[in-house]
């Protein structure tokens, strides 16, 4: 039976980008369906009734939700090519820890850099840079978090790179000035087709953020 794979996604979503990269790394064909988050499709509501969010991966009619779970699922089912998680249980626990750290810190703090103003924004910027520096420490001298190749943590973190320009413009700061090693890592990842074809253009992301700010009445 041919595999049937559908991804319900939103082009701007860093979480969706993770899944796109993982699927590309494994060379898996799938159908991409763009969702309008202000007018969610019946399929999305049926496939993710609990959270009603994208991305949703539908494999032979069965939905898998939550991006980290989707990436692990893809890695397990298509384990013969480009493994993302390490095979050693301890290394795997470390990779999961850092993916969890990205989820807890980077998305929330990054979002605050463009959604808030004044002191709240300054606190968010500080926390955001601090978190990136911790990630830089974990990367060390390795080309990727996964070592010689893209791994789980790379896939989980690199989508936010497409949002960095928007964060910098809205927050009036330079991420590269504070975290040059991380930016070098991100550019290295972008040389991989699986990444460059999965991330939207930074200017487009910034344009959309400006539009969202107008809509929410944020300065």
């Amino acid at each position, binding site marked *: 039976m041919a595999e049937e794979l559908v991804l319900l996604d939103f082009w701007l979503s860093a979480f969706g980008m993770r899944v796109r990269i993982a699927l590309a790394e494994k060379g898996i064909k799938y159908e991409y369906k763009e969702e309008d988050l202000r007018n969610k499709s019946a399929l999305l509501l049926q496939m993710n009734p609990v959270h009603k969010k994208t991305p949703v991966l539908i494999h032979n009619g*069965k939905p*898998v939700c939550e991006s980290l*779970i*989707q990436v692990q699922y893809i890695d397990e089912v298509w384990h013969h090519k480009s493994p993302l998680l390490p095979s050693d249980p301890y290394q795997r*626990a470390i990779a999961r*820890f850092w993916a969890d750290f990205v989820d807890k810190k980077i998305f929330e703090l990054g979002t605050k850099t463009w959604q808030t103003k004044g002191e709240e924004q300054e606190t968010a910027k500080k926390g955001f840079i601090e978190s990136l520096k911790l990630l830089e420490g974990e990367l060390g001298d390795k080309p990727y978090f996964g070592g010689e190749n893209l791994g789980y943590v790379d896939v989980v973190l690199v989508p936010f790179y497409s949002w960095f320009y928007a964060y910098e413009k809205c927050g009036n700061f330079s991420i590269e000035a504070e975290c040059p090693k991380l930016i070098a890592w991100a550019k290295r990842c972008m040389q991989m087709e699986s990444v460059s074809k999965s991330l939207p253009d930074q200017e487009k992301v910034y344009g959309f953020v400006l539009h969202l700010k107008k809509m929410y009445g944020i300065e």
Partner: protein
Amino acid sequence: MEDVVLLDFWPSTFAMRVKIALAEKGIKYACKQEDLFNKSPLLLEMNPIHKKIPVLIHNGKPISESLIIVQYIDEVWNHQSTLLPSDPYQRSQALFWADYIDKKIYGGIGKRIWMGKEDQEEAKEELMQHLKTIEGELGDKLYFGGEKIGYVDVALVPITSWFYTYETCGNFSIEAGCPKLVAWAKRCKENESVSKTLPDSLDIYGYVVQLKKRLGLQ
């Protein structure tokens, strides 16, 4: 020889998950109680990023975050009592529900109930909604893991030791809204790994009363 140490705090529902998993696997370990108002150098060294318990230290190497620790235990000691399903799709569903439990039930909603401030009513409603959702996922199964305790059971059952505290502070009955879930919790306690790990509900209540005094909340 395996050297397993757990940095613990007895009322912590996150730490209870790890203790249940260790008990299910029959693993011997040293349990060190932390004073969260005075964290040990060992804790700060082993979890410098979050400075939180639980931390599992296996042959000197630390693992943090309760669900990550439980998965690690399940993978390393895979000879006995597997917690996660072997099928990738079933595994993704178990991971999904544990994540739901983390976000919606373990994520601070209980604190809003026992703190007893203006948002208490809202928190009670939210909690019951989430518990009903997870009750629906249990369905007619004995356990979330099927015929025996699995990953989702381990992820969820610790919070039941706090139900008495929520009910007393919030003046409501969780059993009235979720009888199947309370029945499931009782069934879990028939397993030694759970009954020997979960503290007495009254002890949790006593702890919260002390904590509220310390925080100046009546």
